[in-house]
């Protein structure tokens, strides 16, 4: 679906994207994670032909980008850096305008050169139908004629998604799709994306919300300072750690029994190094110990991401030498500090 090789983008002296080999396979729900400013949006913009790569190659739907963008883009629905529209016009009019601006519907084989599909806009009724269908999909079928500027952020986000869905795309490229939505809205959009994916649409979304990616995606890429530092199946990333979490009212006796294997004890909670949870459970119950909870420990996505990334790119610390109180603590920016908005 998408394949980039050594994709690099420099803006002046700043290297925004550095040697990224992104691979999104058909049917994936791919989540691109990374701190703010790590280059996610620039990668998406390059995939869509908005920003030109400094070096490296991009292939989307088997065609080189940006050379064949005109052929590829009609099959892609995109939401890039927030929704946008003409503020003085109602949402429905905005959708109709954006729909009428480009070629209509999915491309037939051959593209524009072959049969002048370029000029075929589809009938007015087709277009109206397509707009209504997209509005219905995102839960905006009942919008009135208020201008866009009166919309809430959540409504704009839904409208942006509707615009992305207009052409029944094969590939959805969504930048922060649930931004500004409330928890129920996030759930609805997640269900919608899962439904579209089940119907054959490949989804590539970027987010800095781990929970969102965790709940929806099958495959994850993590970006840090322009590099793609992790790219794998979510299940593989969240592999068991070889530890078992045990909660037991008899934690003291259990700890004694498992002496040497207990890595950590916190009241009733034990972290036990053990390869097989079932066997551990059998062992404890055979001794007559009561077990309230027992589960294999998995690495959380958060741990994976924090391990792979450095401090937020929107954090601007002074170089060590210039720091007024340069102590050992200051020289080592703790990777757990994700606070985004300190500058």
């Amino acid at each position, binding site marked *: 679906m998408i394949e980039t090789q050594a994709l690099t983008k420099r803006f002046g002296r700043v290297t925004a994207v550095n040697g990224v080999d992104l691979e999104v396979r058909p049917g994936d729900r791919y989540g691109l994670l990374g701190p703010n400013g790590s280059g996610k949006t620039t990668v998406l913009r390059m995939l869509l*032909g908005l920003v*030109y790569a400094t070096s490296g190659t991009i292939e989307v739907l088997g065609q080189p980008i940006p050379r064949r963008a005109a052929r590829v883009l009609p099959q892609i629905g995109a939401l890039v850096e927030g*929704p946008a529209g003409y503020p003085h016009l109602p949402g429905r009019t905005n959708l109709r305008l954006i729909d009428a601006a480009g070629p209509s519907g999915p491309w037939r084989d051959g593209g524009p050169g072959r049969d002048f599909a370029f000029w075929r806009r589809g009938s007015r009724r087709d277009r109206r139908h397509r707009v209504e269908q997209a509005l219905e999909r995102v839960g905006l079928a009942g919008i009135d004629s208020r201008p866009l500027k009166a919309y809430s952020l959540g409504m704009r986000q839904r409208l942006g998604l509707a615009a992305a869905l207009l052409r029944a795309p094969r590939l959805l490229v969504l930048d922060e799709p649930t931004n500004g939505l409330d928890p129920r809205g996030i759930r609805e959009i997640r269900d919608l994306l899962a439904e579209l994916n089940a119907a054959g649409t490949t989804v590539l979304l970027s987010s800095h919300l781990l929970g969102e990616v965790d709940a929806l995606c099958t495959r994850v890429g993590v970006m840090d300072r322009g590099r793609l530092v992790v790219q794998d199946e979510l299940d593989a990333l969240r592999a068991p750690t070889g530890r078992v979490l045990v909660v037991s009212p008899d934690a003291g006796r259990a700890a004694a029994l498992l002496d040497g294997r207990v890595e950590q004890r916190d009241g009733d909670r034990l972290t036990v190094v053990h390869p097989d949870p079932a066997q551990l459970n059998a062992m404890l119950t055979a001794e007559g110990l009561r077990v309230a909870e027992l589960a294999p420990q998995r690495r959380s996505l958060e741990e994976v991401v924090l391990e792979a990334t450095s401090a937020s790119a929107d954090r601007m610390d002074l170089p060590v030498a210039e720091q007024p109180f340069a102590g050992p603590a200051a020289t080592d920016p703790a990777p757990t500090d994700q606070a985004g908005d300190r500058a």
Partner: protein
Amino acid sequence: MIRTEIVKLLVRPRTWITVLLLCLLPFVVAIFLATTNLAPPPGEGPAFLSAVLRDGTLYPAAALAMVVPVFLPVSVAVLAGDSVAGEATGGTLRYLLVRPVGRTRLLVAKLVSVLVFVLLAIAAVIVTSYLTGRALLGGGQPAAVALPGGTTSLSGTPLTPTDLFLRTLASIGYATVCMLAVAAIALFLSTLTDSALGAALGALAVLVASELLATLDAASSVQPYLPTRYWLAWIDFFRQPIFWRDIDRGLAVSGVYIGLLLLASWANFMTRDITA
């Protein structure tokens, strides 16, 4: 894409307010002329104004002479400056381009919509000023009746209504070409920056500088190449015989500006990263 651009132009309240204001100026002037009967002496003030008190049918030409030097270029610069930069600021540019709309097509559509605006504005000014001219100044002047076909040219010889109509059309065409040169300047700046205001003001700065140099004797060596130098040459359509020299030069200068700047806009827009 061209059609949606024109729709966007026409559904925008700003377009109609601008056209209304452009029409209002000649209307106000006509009221003053009609109530005071004080025309500027021949050779002073805006072109044709000295003549319109005697003959209201020349008022459309006088109205054109009022709006072409300042108001029309200002509105064209604002519109064309907003064309690409405004979409970039609003974020709609990226959605148009991934729709996809080819970058060349987008530029052409923007240019066509500016052209439509210029024609719309000029037509509105001509029609309203013709009506006000007939109603307040001219309709059935004895002098006009005395000569069959009535209207006299600036050179004093009479013009038939058909002749007057054709010459008015020709001046509209000429003024439109001049305004397209303004549009080309603003459109080029609009592809350079994401600020619509910056592009419009930049284009206006070029025009003001050009007007200033046009009055400066020391700058006479560059004057033939200034974009505003021949802006009022369409007045020569109302001379008998038509005085073609300045009209031809004006068309050539505007043509060069339009061609070069559109090419520059295209080259710049095609290779630009859309980061807004």
